[in-house]
C-alpha cells in the first residue's frame, strides 16, 4: 500500500436546506489517478471544492498526510499550495501574460527567485506545448490553449495532488483531445490526480480508481475495470447503460 496523502472523513456540505454532500469517506494515495463520475448535481464539483477548501465543509474532517487540516487561513494557504486545482473555466489571470500566470504562484507563494520561477514556468509550459505563447494574454488564446496553460500553472507549484474540476467540459471535441493528452502524460509521470470528468474513455483507460457519486454520496469506489464491466449500484448501472448505448 502506498503512502496516503489526503483522507476525507464524514465530509458533509449543505447550502442552506439543500444538502449537497453526505458522509463522504475516502482517501487519496500517492500516485492515485482517481476519476469522479456521476450525473450533474451529484456533488462531484462541490466535493472537489471542499477538498481544496474553496468551500468550507459543513461537517467532517480533511486530513493531509495524517494530520487534520485546521481552519487558520495560513494553514489553508500552505495546504493549497501543495494541492493544486484546474478549473472548468480555466481561471487564468486575465491581467497577466501566459508567462506571468505561471510565475505568479511560484514567486508570490513559494518565494522562488525570478530566474528559477522563469525556468520552472518554461519547463512546464513546454510540457503542455504552450511555451511559444509566453507573451500572449489569456484572452488571445483558445479554450484548449487556456486549459493547457492552467495545467502548467498548477504544475509550476509542484503540487503533491492536482485536482481537476471538469477540465474539458468547456472545450470543443478537438481541444478536449489536446487537454486529455496532456493529462495522460501527467499520469505516466505518476502525478497524483483527482479528476471530476464526463470523459468515460479517459476514466476507463487512465484512472486506477473510479468514484461514482449520486445524491451527495459516493455509492461506488472501484477500479475502472470492475466499475465499467460490472457496476454494483443500480444508479451506476443506469448511468453506464447510457454511456455504452451512446
Amino acid at each position: 500500500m502506498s503512502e496516503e496523502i489526503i483522507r476525507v472523513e464524514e465530509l458533509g456540505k449543505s447550502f442552506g436546506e439543500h444538502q449537497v454532500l453526505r458522509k463522504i469517506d475516502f482517501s487519496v494515495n500517492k500516485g492515485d489517478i482517481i476519476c469522479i463520475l456521476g450525473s450533474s448535481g451529484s456533488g462531484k464539483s462541490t466535493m472537489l471544492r471542499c477538498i481544496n477548501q474553496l468551500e468550507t465543509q459543513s461537517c467532517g474532517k480533511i486530513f493531509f498526510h495524517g494530520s487534520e487540516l485546521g481552519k487558520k487561513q495560513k494553514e489553508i494557504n500552505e495546504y493549497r499550495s501543495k494541492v493544486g486545482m484546474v478549473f472548468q473555466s480555466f481561471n487564468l489571470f486575465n491581467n497577466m501574460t501566459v508567462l506571468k500566470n505561471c510565475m505568479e504562484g511560484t514567486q508570490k507563494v513559494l518565494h522562488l527567485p525570478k530566474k528559477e520561477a522563469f525556468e520552472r514556468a518554461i519547463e512546464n509550459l513546454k510540457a503542455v506545448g504552450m511555451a511559444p505563447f509566453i507573451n500572449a494574454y489569456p484572452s488571445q488564446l483558445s479554450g484548449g490553449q487556456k486549459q493547457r496553460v492552467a495545467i502548467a500553472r498548477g504544475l509550476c507549484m509542484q503540487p503533491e495532488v492536482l485536482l481537476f474540476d471538469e477540465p474539458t467540459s468547456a472545450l470543443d471535441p478537438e481541444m478536449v483531445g489536446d487537454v486529455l493528452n496532456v493529462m495522460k502524460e501527467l499520469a505516466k509521470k505518476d502525478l497524483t490526480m483527482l479528476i471530476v470528468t464526463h470523459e468515460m474513455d479517459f476514466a476507463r483507460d487512465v484512472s486506477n480508481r473510479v468514484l461514482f457519486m449520486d445524491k451527495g454520496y459516493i455509492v461506488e469506489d472501484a477500479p475502472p475495470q470492475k466499475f465499467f464491466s460490472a457496476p454494483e449500484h443500480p444508479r451506476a448501472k443506469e448511468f453506464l447503460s447510457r454511456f455504452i448505448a451512446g
Partner: protein
Amino acid sequence: MTNTPTNSFEWVLFIAKKYSDLFLRGTWLTMLVSVSGTLLGFILGYAVGIVQDTAVNKEDNPVKRGILLFFKGICTLYVELFRGTPMIVQAMIVFYGLRQAGFEIDPISAGILVTLLNTGAYMAETVRAGIKSIDAGQREGALALGMSPISAMFHIILPQAFKNIVPEMANMFLTNLKMTSVLNVIGVQELFLQAKTAGGTYYKYLESYLVIALIYLVLCFVFSRVFALIEKKTAVRKDYVLAVEYMENTQ
C-alpha cells in the same frame, strides 16, 4: 482698440487680459484642490471599498470579526454621510467646525479635505462595483495557488478592477474640477471666486464668467484626454509576439 470695450466679446477679452493674474491664480488653486483632493480621495476610496467588500467569516475568531465589523460600520457611516449631504454644506461644516474646535485650518487645506472626503465616499462604491465586476474565478484561481485572500485582492483582482473603473474615475475627476467652485463659500480663491472679483469692478459678471467657463472647458478637455490615454495604456493588447525560440517544442 479703444480704452472702453463696446460689446460683450470685447469685454470678455478686456477682462481676461486685465485680470489675467487673478484667473491664473484661480486656475492654479482649482487644479491644486481638485487634483490633490481627488487623488487622495481615490486612495481613501480604494481603502474603504476594499474594507466594505471584505466578507466577515463565521469561522474567524471573535476578535478579528469584531474589528472587521467595527471598521465596516465606520466605512458605511462615512459613505452614507458624505453621499447624503451636499458638498457645499460639507465645506461649511468642516471648515467652520474645525475652526470652532480650535484647529487653525486654512481654506485651501479645508477645501482639499472636503474634496478628498467627498471623492472617497463615491470612489468607495465605485471600487466595490469594480471588484464585483471581476469574475469570482479570478479569485479562486489565485487562492488555489495558495495565495492569501489579501494577496489575491492586490495582485489579481484590484489591477483588473482598476482597469474597469478608469472611465468612472475620469468622470469623478472632471466633476471635482468643477465642484471645487462651491469652495468659494469658505474663501478658497479658486476660479469662481476670482471671476466674481474680476467681474465686480466693471459690473461685467457675465463676461467674467464666460472667461472661466472657457478655462474650465479647456481644463476638462485636457484631463479627459489624459484619462483616455490611461484607458488605452491599460487595455489588453490584441496582438502578441510568438516566442519562436520555443517553437520546436510545440506539438
